[in-house]
């Protein structure tokens, strides 16, 4: 991405096909705006995200990565919350090793109707990233 437009940060969102992606869709339906440099990759379950993907995103130029986690609504079982938490802390450690600010990875449980919460989260994250990375 060019340096021209830094009014919004590049954020990669990992959403889940059945839980958080519907919420992000509904944010669009309700025209709840958020920065257009927020991109979503949808996967079955947030506990299946590999830390290597997240690190790759930073390497390629994403400012932040946001995991729109299934939380307790996960259709694959309760262990999702704990496993997603584990992979996030594993990634945080790897980020520290590489001198990447761990706060550039955020996670929040986004239920299938949590559109407002999603928008609030990514807006807040965008502000943080702009302040710390592009000030």
């Amino acid at each position, binding site marked *: 991405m060019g340096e021209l437009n830094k009014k919004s940060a590049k954020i990669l969102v990992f959403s889940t096909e059945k839980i958080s992606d519907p919420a992000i869709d509904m944010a*669009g339906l309700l*025209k709840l705006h958020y920065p257009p440099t927020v991109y979503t990759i949808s996967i079955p379950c947030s506990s*299946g995200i590999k830390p*290597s993907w997240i690190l*790759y995103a930073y390497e390629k130029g*994403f400012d932040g990565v946001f995991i729109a986690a299934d939380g307790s609504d996960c259709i694959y079982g309760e*262990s999702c919350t704990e496993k997603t938490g584990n992979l996030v802390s594993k990634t945080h450690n790897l980020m520290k090793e590489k001198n990447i600010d761990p706060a550039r990875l955020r996670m929040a449980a986004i239920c299938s*109707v949590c559109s407002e919460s999603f928008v609030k989260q990514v807006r807040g994250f965008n502000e943080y990233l702009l302040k710390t990375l592009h000030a």
Partner: protein
Amino acid sequence: MEKKPKRIGVYVCHCGGNISDYVDVEKVRRSVEGEDAEIVVLAKTTMFACSDANQREMVEDIKANNLDSVIVSSCSPKLHMLTFRNVSVRADLNKFTYVHANIREQASWAHSDDKNGATEKAIHLVKAAIAKARYAEPLETNKIRAVKTVAVIGAGVAGMKAAISLAQKNTDVILIEKEPFVGGRVAQWDSLSTTTETGKEMVKRLYNELLKYDNITIMTNSEVIENKGSVGNISLKIKKTPRFINATACHPDDLKRAIEVCPVEVPDDFNFRLNSRKAIYKNYPSEYPQIPVIDVKNCTRCGECEKVCKAIDFNEKEEIFEIVAGSVLMATGFDSYTPAYGEFGYATSENVITLPQFKRLIDTQFDKLIYKGKEIKTIAYIYCVGSRQTDGENTYCSRNCCTSTIHAALTAKNKFKNITNYHFNRGLRTYGKQEILYADSLRSGDIYFQSYEDGLPKVSVEGAKTIVKVNDVLTNNREIEVEADLVVLVTGMVPRSDNSIGTLFKLPKGRDKFYNEVHMKLRPVETVIDGITIAGACQGPKNITESVNSALSAATKSYTILSRGELETDPLVATIDPEKCSWCGACEEACPFDAILKVENGKKVIAEINNTVCKGCGMCAPVCDPDAVNLIACSSREIMSMIDALV
């Protein structure tokens, strides 16, 4: 051998303006046309990608251009992913070669305030889809035998009707009811609107019909406690609580005595706690099944009932059943809103009751309407209690309460002498033919006041008097004051407070906290969990006719899923790279479905995926240190190439 480059076709949909009003679709098309030269061999815009004409054109394009894969950039994949997969299949492509890009919900609509931003985002999203399509390989679907049994959960009117209609379609049904009796909410009502049949009679009629079918198993006092497997083959564990009454030794007179001698008194939920019942009880004479039950939570085991009735058997044990169903139909109903302490005088004034309580009250009284020893003549109804809240959680309209209240008020007026009804409403919603009932009510002399949105009625207690005050819209803001013998709070439908079944099945809820359908118009009775359908008021407020329509729709859907006997499931499972794996067991530990097998592979032991059990969640992938695990269609190379395209 070097693989031949893929030939990909891209369609960018206007969605009749929904997309093209904010996203420059032509720019999107141009920016991907000829992407990697030999890869994107065709890029088109279309007014409606999903229209029949465009679908036909796609089939022709695929054939004429020898495409290996197509991408449609349009609305959310929840709407039309299947539509376009089927188009691919009609053009002799494997359906898994199809890739979807969502540039409506996640670009044009989400960024309708920023056309350039939306267009840029759409371009990136389409490029990411192209990156994914590069690796999209033809896959064989898994075929599984579907068990031709439907588990219907909840034996209210919706559940009973669904069960009957499935049984008529030669499908086995297991009807599971948590309560000791069937009939749900309708069994609690006597007089119903639009018919002379009472709720109890209707329940009796349906129950008698249920009994006609050998292929229906009714389980009362039973709860699902475990859920395993997936569509076509769902294993359920059911806990049946004993009634502690031996049906074969049952003599009605003895049982009657047993109820009389029981010393325990608990609030009677069937009558919405207007009165109390015993720990051994039945709710009404024609109730089904025709065997009373001992409420084990409240029974003190004093033994009084045993002394007078030999059918009582405290040795009955809780039973656990395991069943297998192909599909589960949820018909778990609703709760009635319970007002907060002091809300319109609830619990603070003894003259304030809820609509369901009022309905039970008029059904159980004769000649005179007596409440708490006092004859009731003037009744004030306060509408929308717990619905259309401006400062509470329940913003939705509960749909059925206006009609239900007017019907109850008219019933009271016809049954008892000298009743005056005052309706404090927020704009009557007697939609459709129910309007006639409202006209009848006006003709009978019922009085209607409409409150302002910011001026809800106030209930005050002055000694024994209960006074309702409101500023009335209909008489130009005049302050109205009514002294009422009884204030009826028109409480709406709310989701069941006990959501254990929803949690067990992982059913997503909508904004109103009722269970959510996939799409209100395209897939109104299906949930995101394959094979689980929803019926009746657990999906949202409904009257009886509407509940039955939704129940029969859900039955049609569950039946359609199972009727062919064989189901295709997506083969999007995990894969193990045998080169990298050297069995550490981490994946086995992470898998919630026991889908990882430990196998010998030449000289070493490695993990292997049991494809029929794997659900493709991917929990095993991040825990693998040698990075030997990948999900089909969500592998590292796909995700990373998408990241490349999005940056």
